[in-house]
């Protein structure tokens, strides 16, 4: 089994945060339309990556898809787990109770509390269900993000 994750090149990241805009769009009710995602979706999701920035250094951090994830270990309800097919760390939203233990447990700070009426843990899912290439990777204007495939 191999698994994928999004990796960054901090030499090319310019801190524009378009990755966040397109992440939000890809996970909204209007996955192909930035304008509608931001203007019409009352349950607009939070971005699933964080742009870390200090001086000239910046990079877009998202789930590292750990092989032994702290978030999975910490999850009270078993909502977090590793997908057997893809090897990615997934949230089963119906089981998530919004306790945010995973948010605290993640050593990278890559999980965020979600938004909306039923807020659940929000983390990078590699846009698995909607796109072949994650939106952040496709729309990074400076090609600072790419998908890395690892053998497991």
């Amino acid at each position: 089994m191999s698994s994928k994750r999004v990796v960054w090149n901090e030499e090319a990241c310019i801190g524009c945060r378009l990755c966040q805009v397109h992440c939000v769009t890809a996970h909204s009710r209007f996955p192909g339309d930035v304008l509608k995602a931001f203007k019409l979706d009352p349950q607009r999701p939070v971005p699933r990556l964080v742009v870390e920035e200090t001086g000239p250094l910046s990079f877009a951090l998202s789930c590292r898809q750990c092989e032994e994830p702290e978030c999975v270990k910490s999850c009270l309800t078993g909502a977090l787990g590793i997908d057997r097919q893809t090897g990615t760390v997934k949230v089963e939203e119906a089981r998530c109770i919004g306790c945010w233990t995973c948010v605290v447990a993640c050593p990278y700070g890559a999980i965020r509390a979600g938004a909306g009426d039923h807020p659940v843990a929000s983390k990078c899912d590699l846009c698995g269900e909607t796109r072949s290439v994650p939106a952040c990777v496709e729309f990074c204007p400076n090609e600072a993000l790419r998908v890395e495939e690892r053998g497991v």
Partner: protein
Amino acid sequence: MALSMRVPSYQVHRNPQRCIDCQVCVRQCTYGVHAWDEDFQAVVADDAKCVNCHRCVVFCPTGALAVTPAPHTFVPNANWRSDDLREVYLQAETGGTLLVGMGNDRPYKIFWDHLLLNASQVTNPSIDPLREPVEVKTLLGRKPDALHLSGGGLQEPLPPELELEVPIMFSAMSFGSVSLNTQKSLARAAVEEGTYWNCGEGGLHPDVLPYAHRAIVQVASGRFGVSVDYLNAGAAVEIKIGQGAKPGIGGHLPGEKVGDEVSRTRMIPLGSDAISPAPHHDIYSIEDLRQLINSLKEATQHRKPVGVKIAAVHNVAAIASGSVRAGADFLVIDGFRGGTGAAPLRIRDNVGIPIELALAAVDSRLREEGIRNHASLVVSGGIRNSADVIKAIALGADAVNIATAALIALGCHMCQMCYRGRCTWGIATTDAALTKRVNPDIGARRAANLLRAWKHEIKEMLGGMGINAIESLRGNRLALRGIGLSERELRILGVSAAGE
């Protein structure tokens, strides 16, 4: 502080129905135009700071932004244009020389647009470059007066030459005037496409040494970064006498741009102004130039062509002739539309002559004197597309240099603010954060694409003329006709009028 009497030149239009408050524009603008306002809970714009660089327009994910000329007008006046007033207001405030970046933007006649190319019809067949080879390889350097053969080979080795797969090189742009990533992009594109880039007067940074075999290294009046290793690292040496954007003027890289890397590469103290004097202090005659050319040839064991770059000025043909007689293996002539990172506005807009006229005058003069084969001619300053390239070659150039076009390929939107060091496109800056805006992987790809696209078009135009090698077009002014030109202009250009 007294009121500034200046008015904004541009207006930023934000469509509130499309703005999603993502603040990408705020982060991309380096001139402080866009800002998030806590009280309004909205992104606001300060039009007065806008330089119309289009960075925000291109980056806005919803197309919410547009920049237009400011709607207010000065009272129309054919004598006092709005620019004239703006410049007086600014100088009355600052008392300073007006600075500007890029090339002359005044509406002087563009002779390229008054020259038309020929094509084959009936009596000679045109060539389809997709079916038959069309050769555009170009060799630059001194060509011997005659070849002497003995024992199945040449008696004497040929003088050193540069081999170009396409007759287009990148003009000199120093690390400092442009970012290292810009230099890397062009260097990699030059290596990939088999042509040359030019490191300008800024030395060779260790990061670009892998591309030095395709570099022309410059020796200019400041002699920054020059060492024997530097001279021998490049493919050729170019003595820079002048630059089309500012003939007769030296260079001035302000101390704030001289950071760690620039200081090391130029071999000057950190934070010191890098001043290239207007003249070379050891060149006051053609004889002095000859001495420097010979010194550089000695330092490179006569293995590399040594060229001279001059600005196109009134007496260019005589100066070119003198430079060739002084031993230059190639001449670079930079017309008055050539770009720059910073030049005094009055110099840029009023000094020098168009490259088309200079080229025709120099080529004719060198032919008349029987020394055209002693040096190759490279022209620059306002080459906008492949048609300009091919017209330049028909007028007598061996190759052209491009810089403005190359920077546009990398993202430059010609706002002419290079001298401020805040280039939003990451090109004319040494700021560590802004430099990252040019990803050399993307930059190299785009610059190489431009060269390839022009190469295809050149082959297409050559084929149309029934010419299968660019060598056959070189200096062939019969391939050109002038339109909308006076008798005198036609005579200087050495071309017949359309219909003749």
